[in-house]
């Protein structure tokens, strides 16, 4: 029993990834995340375009700011700043850091 407890605490945090996935819409200003995929409900052409814009699996994304009136939201994706409405960010699945 005690052995297991010691094991867990001695492990570096990265090796027990807290696999919390959520839609991109939940990100707050300043949050970073890793994209895990695009929801299957997303129409194929939209999925294609999101991919071309850099919203592909494994890409890292950062929420930069929300527009003053609440929508849209500006993200840093790849090497560019892009803004999306929640209708699109709802499709994008991200993995949140611990």
């Amino acid at each position, binding site marked *: 029993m005690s052995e297991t407890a010691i094991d867990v605490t001695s492990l570096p945090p990265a090796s027990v990834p807290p696999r919390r996935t959520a839609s991109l819409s939940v990100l707050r200003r300043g949050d970073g995340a890793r994209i895990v995929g695009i929801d299957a409900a997303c129409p194929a*052409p*939209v999925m*294609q*375009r999101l*991919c*071309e*814009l*850099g919203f*592909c699996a494994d890409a890292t994304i950062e929420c*930069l*700011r929300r*527009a*003053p*009136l*609440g*929508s*849209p939201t*500006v993200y*840093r994706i*790849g*090497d*560019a*700043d*892009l*803004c*999306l*409405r929640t*209708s*699109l960010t709802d499709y994008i699945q991200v993995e949140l850091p611990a």
Partner: protein
Amino acid sequence: MSHHHDGGRSTTTATGAVLALVGAPNAGKSSVFNRLTGLRVRTANYPGVTVTHSTGVVGDGPRGVQLVDLPGTYGLTPVSPDEHVVLDHLAGRLPGTRAPDALLVVVDATTLRRSLSLVAQALATALPCAVVLTMTDELDVRGGHLDAAALSQALGVPVYPVVGHRGRGVPALRDGLLDWPTWQAPALLPPVDDRAQLDGWILSVLDRVGYRPAGPPTGSRSLDRVLLHPVWGLVTFAAVMVVFFQAIFTLAAPLQGYVESLFGWLGGLAAADIANPVLADLVSTGLIGGLGGVLVFLPQIVLLFTLLSLLEAVGYLARAAVLMDRVMAISGLDGRAFVSMLSSIACAVPGIMSTRTMPSSRDRIATMLAAPLMPCSARLPVYLLLTGMLVPTTARWGPFGLQGFALFALYMAGGISAMIAASVLRATVLRRGGLPFYLELPPFRMPTLRTLAQSVWTPVRMFLRKVGTIILVANLVLWALLTFPTRTAETATMSPSEASAYTLDHSVAASIGHALEPVYEPLGFDWRINIGLVSAMAAREVFVSTLGQVAAAQDPENPQDVLRTMTFTDGEHVGERVFTAPTIIALLVYFVFAMQCISTLAVMRRESNSWRWPAFSFVSLTLLAWVAAWLARSVALALT
């Protein structure tokens, strides 16, 4: 043997090659295109959509090539009807265009990772390709790195680094472009069908060119912290829009006055030298006046496009779209429609032209159709005349003058109905065929004078050549309607104001006015108001002077007093006053909604590339205006 149907100068290279310029929005494509082709550019619409492509010529003689600037795109797999047309163009499936012989892919070095996906799709077409690498200076400044020679080796195609806005690297690019037959299609095409394999290909290319991505654009970030700030962002936006609006409304007004005076003076000069009174009137009013009626739009169009191009090139237009997106979403449009709607308060003609900055056909059409409802400045003289007759200038409601209150209500009615119209259109006839809203925020950049000049010149030239002719012809027709048949003998002994009233009262326009009586009788309009409505097609404010002329007012521009006492000349209401309160209200409401402007219809025809939308706009808005005016009059009659 391929043919292409070009008019104009570019026919000199009709036997030459066609090269297409492909690239993502904001990659500096237009800048490269302008540098290579100069001002000899032809812009054409694709059939069926409001997407345009420009063609220019590079080089002279037998080696000269035609360069086609395709709309900016993030990929070559079409995801909307607008993008389908671009793909059809590349495949040579469009009538009147030829498939390009080679592709020139413009790549922004600071977003190389993403752009390689477009490069891969271009290479996969198996056409000879070359890459133009832009923003390399920006990549260096932001601490990034890439080896252009290694990129050429990795892709197997020529790579030309340029700094588009400074023209650096352009001579080498031009030489390389004319040597396009030496470009080789790569031996091994990139794996574009499988995303995982494509990602692997992209990573290997990035590795071979020693790519180090640029750091975030720190300057732009700091600016965005202010420009998109919940308070300061909106304050700056309001300030920018006030300046913008002032320029096209207040600054343009005196310039338009000069144009009108100049053409009035020229018309007078011409009339004085022509003995035949009808011919004199044709030259002074019809021809010179008609030309003035076209050129009077120039100050607004030049100012609007100067500011619009500046805001777009700097990168602020994208920020403005972010700020206003929430508001415009109510109407089913996105933030990019805001500036067009705002411009339409000055005049729908530049407003409709400004929809060119919108990438989606569907949103452009919705904005164009809503724009004529915005309370344009030509309505103001009509509103002032009619509210002046309806409400005494001294009437007050609390601290507010009632006249100002009435004007405010008319302006609000126009703005709100424009938003409602857009949302109805987007939910019905324009429902399908778009992508959800996404927008890239490019780093703030300084534009060059050259790029600005080009972006102002292109719409101005289009307006003069394509829209100006329609307006000129329409104005001539209107002049003929108001003038013929001539009454020289009958009016010989009359005073000038009586003579012009007599001619007008017996003109073709008067017959039309009489013919329209059954249509407008329920609104309380008599045949003279109907003549005014016909003449208002030239420009809404002409309504005032035409009514003045019909009523034989001494000063046709200020006909209030004469109109107040004007009575019906025939029919069941003979002898009763025409301008009663319910009729004035009906007329005001009619002017809020009616599509009474040939210039707007002409520019809508040009920008939408079909008569279908202007016809739709004219019919639906005229019906709407009639019904709304009838309702307003009925309510007013019931209350008085």
